[in-house]
């Protein structure tokens, strides 16, 4: 057996193992994950901090959904931080100002800085972050609060979803988001939630004083803060019923740009917290953090192996390509097929676990077929930018 063979075997085993862990987590918790939580009835004061940069298009609808939240008015505070927008965001938001809705404006300094500015002005026991291009539903807060009965819980992530449409790139991301949500829920059972998404993650106000505020120079500040909470050995829980709808990128260019940013920032953040790869950090340290490095390595190895096998194809194969295809059906094909089928099953489980979420077959198929190519696209770009040492910023 030569080195490419060994690498193929290693990647095959790694993919099998990772997939099996998720399937087993599902089997173990299949009766827990949609059970409503018992709730003590605690009704804390909640501040919602919404940073906004050039969001005049969306902010009105977003604010309306916040004002429509089912939560006692005297316990709810809304803080809009206009981050030096060059459009009418500030003026538009200002029109909504009231006793419980404050609108601030500051010099442009990035999302992290705007969030920190808002949090410092927040008076609630809990603080939710909010994106101006996202919309909550009536019971979003109510669904999130019960998790805080556990005093170790410092943050709860909502079910960030995309509204159903007939735009294929949006539908594509909708499927992806459902899969991510489902995986995040499963990860919450082993206390390994790695991100508190910008739209409506909710925190104990006290956690910021203890571990610090958002990193203002981070490409993915909502992931960095989650890793910091994990590093402090606090819990992050994940809700599948507290819905928030967000506007995804609607062009391939924007999507790739977003993902390259996530990837560049994400890997740097895991690298920053690589010290957590120790038994005292439990599943998060011994499984989840290493998994991210392993997955990235496996991905690039697989890409390299594919390129190698194409480049090293003997000349004569053109005369017997059909037979060669048949001879290439081997062990790796078997494991590959198993992994593809099982991930398809996993995807089906994920979608099925959300009541009322339906995905048209054509979007599901396009997701299954094209996800890999989009991943190749942004990962290659990611590698390219890292190797070029391109400036690391928004």
């Amino acid at each position, binding site marked *: 057996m030569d080195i490419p063979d060994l690498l193929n075997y290693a990647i095959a085993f790694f993919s099998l193992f990772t997939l099996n862990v998720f399937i087993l987590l599902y089997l173990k918790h299949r009766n827990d994950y949609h059970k409503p939580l018992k709730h003590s009835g605690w009704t804390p004061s909640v501040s919602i901090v919404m940073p906004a940069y050039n969001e005049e298009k969306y902010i009105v609808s977003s604010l309306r959904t916040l004002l429509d939240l089912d939560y006692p008015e005297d316990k709810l505070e809304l803080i809009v931080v206009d981050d030096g927008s060059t459009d009418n965001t500030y003026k538009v938001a200002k029109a909504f100002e009231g006793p419980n809705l404050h609108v601030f404006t500051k010099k442009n300094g990035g999302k992290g800085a705007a969030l920190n500015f808002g949090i410092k002005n927040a008076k609630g026991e809990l603080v939710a972050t909010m994106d101006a291009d996202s919309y909550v539903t009536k019971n979003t807060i109510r669904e999130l609060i019960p998790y805080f009965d556990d005093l170790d819980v410092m943050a709860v992530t909502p079910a960030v979803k995309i509204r159903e449409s007939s735009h294929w790139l949006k539908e594509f991301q909708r499927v992806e988001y459902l899969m991510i949500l489902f995986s995040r829920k499963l990860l919450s059972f*082993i206390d390994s939630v790695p991100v508190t998404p910008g739209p409506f993650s909710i925190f104990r106000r006290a956690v910021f004083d203890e571990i610090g505020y958002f990193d203002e120079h981070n490409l993915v500040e909502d992931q960095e803060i989650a890793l910091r909470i994990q590093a402090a050995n606090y819990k992050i829980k994940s809700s599948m019923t507290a819905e928030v709808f967000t506007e995804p990128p609607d062009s391939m260019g924007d999507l790739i740009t977003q993902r390259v940013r996530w990837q560049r920032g994400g890997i740097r953040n895991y690298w920053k917290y690589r010290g957590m790869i120790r038994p005292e950090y439990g599943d998060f340290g011994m499984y989840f953090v290493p998994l991210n490095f392993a997955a990235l390595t496996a991905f690039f190895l697989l890409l390299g192996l594919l390129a190698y096998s194409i480049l090293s194809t003997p000349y004569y194969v053109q005369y017997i390509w059909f037979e060669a295809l048949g*001879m290439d059906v081997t062990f790796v094909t*078997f494991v590959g097929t198993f992994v593809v089928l099982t991930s398809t099953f996993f995807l089906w489980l994920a979608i099925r676990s959300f009541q009322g979420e339906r995905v048209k077959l054509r979007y599901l198929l396009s997701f299954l077929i094209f996800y890999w190519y989009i991943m190749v696209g942004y990962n290659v770009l990611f590698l390219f930018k890292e190797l070029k040492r391109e400036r690391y910023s928004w």
Partner: protein
Amino acid sequence: MKRTVSFPIYAAAFVISLAIFVIGIYIGMLIDQANVRSISDDVSNISEKVASIQLLLLSEGNSSSFCPIYVSQLDSIDEDVERIGYKLSYLEEEKGIYDAELKKKYFIVEAESYLLSGKVRTLCGGDEVLLINFYSNRDCAKCRDQGVEVLKARDALSDEGIDVKLFSFDGEIGSPVAEAFAMQYNVTTYPSVIINGRTYAGYRSSEDLQAYIKAAR
């Protein structure tokens, strides 16, 4: 919060993965065996076809009345022989499956079809060129490239309407037939190319080969 590592989950995932892995390897082995068997069957089939033509030739002596049959049969036999050769090479180079006995058996059929093609060409007056590519899979850096050049030359000439039949022998696997041919054509180094009986030792480019082949007609 006190953290723990969920060992049972990882252990179970490991065992399940290992089980699928082992099943996969077993299935892979079955497929490999099936591939070898299928090529072995191909060789036997061709062998029978070759034998029947030989029989016809023997019974008809030097009469050219059966030429259309000889020519069409041999064309298809030679084509099949070439494809089986590629399949064997693919198994050996890409899959690491090497079956010395099968390869020797294949060389016998190949030698038979080469000799028959030569004989039929003389008898029936064909103008195709017979080319033997002598290679070795041991310590022969240029052999793989030579194989590519031979194919390029053949394909280029086929566009011009010149018919070349290819035969390849590995001279260093202890095949008696291949060794006898090597002796007959004075092959001492690999790669060597023999065009209509004339030996060209050492690596030759596709352009050179095309020139030799045109000269040999």
